[in-house]
């Protein structure tokens, strides 16, 4: 059974600071996703990471993937209040014959950025 662990689950930080959210998963996977969710809203796709060593950046957010360590990180640089949200990582099981696989989500990191 695929397990996905995120930490921390709750993070309160000040604007301007840097921080990293960690996502560990239990079995081999070829797809790692990061989503943002605002209260009462659906999931907004941030990053899709598909290979070992993949690094993607969008604004103040940067995500990386180490498939050997089964670890992904989401790094926040110089946080601003607008980044306050819940961030989920999710992992898709390895493809088998092209079949469809749903995502297994971590519990999410509730991020509050204070002025």
């Amino acid at each position: 059974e695929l397990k996905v662990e995120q930490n921390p689950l709750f993070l309160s930080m000040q604007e301007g600071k840097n921080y990293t959210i960690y996502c560990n998963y239990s079995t081999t996977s070829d797809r790692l996703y990061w989503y943002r969710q605002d209260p009462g809203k659906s999931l907004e796709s941030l990053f899709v990471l598909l290979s070992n060593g993949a690094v993607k950046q969008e604004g103040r957010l940067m995500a990386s993937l180490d498939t050997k360590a089964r670890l992904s990180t989401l790094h926040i640089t110089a946080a601003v209040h607008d980044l306050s949200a819940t961030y989920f990582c999710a992992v898709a099981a390895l493809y088998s014959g092209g079949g469809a696989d749903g995502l297994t989500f971590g519990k999410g990191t509730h991020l509050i950025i204070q002025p």
Partner: protein
Amino acid sequence: DAMVIQNPRYQVTQFGKPVTLSCSQTLNHNVMYWYQQKSSQAPKLLFHYYDKDFNNEADTPDNFQSRRPNTSFCFLDIRSPGLGDAAMYLCASRRGGGNEQFFGPGTRLTVL
């Protein structure tokens, strides 16, 4: 714009009264998913379709059923909703062979 649409956005039903949630996508994607997200929890996969092939997660309650009459539409039927079924229900789609899942806006279900 091509997208994933869910109707209704808010649904209130009574305990035990069957309810159907609807999802449609204009992306012509082969794969469609239903996730359940309870308050302050992570989304949890209920089932998915690859074309017409239905895949039920092992721990999805029998109370939950799904139909996919054509490529564009997928329905979630809850036969006898209980209070514990109150949640946000998220539909997503993906092109077969593609990597990204596109999520709809969700339907928030309240059970009275």
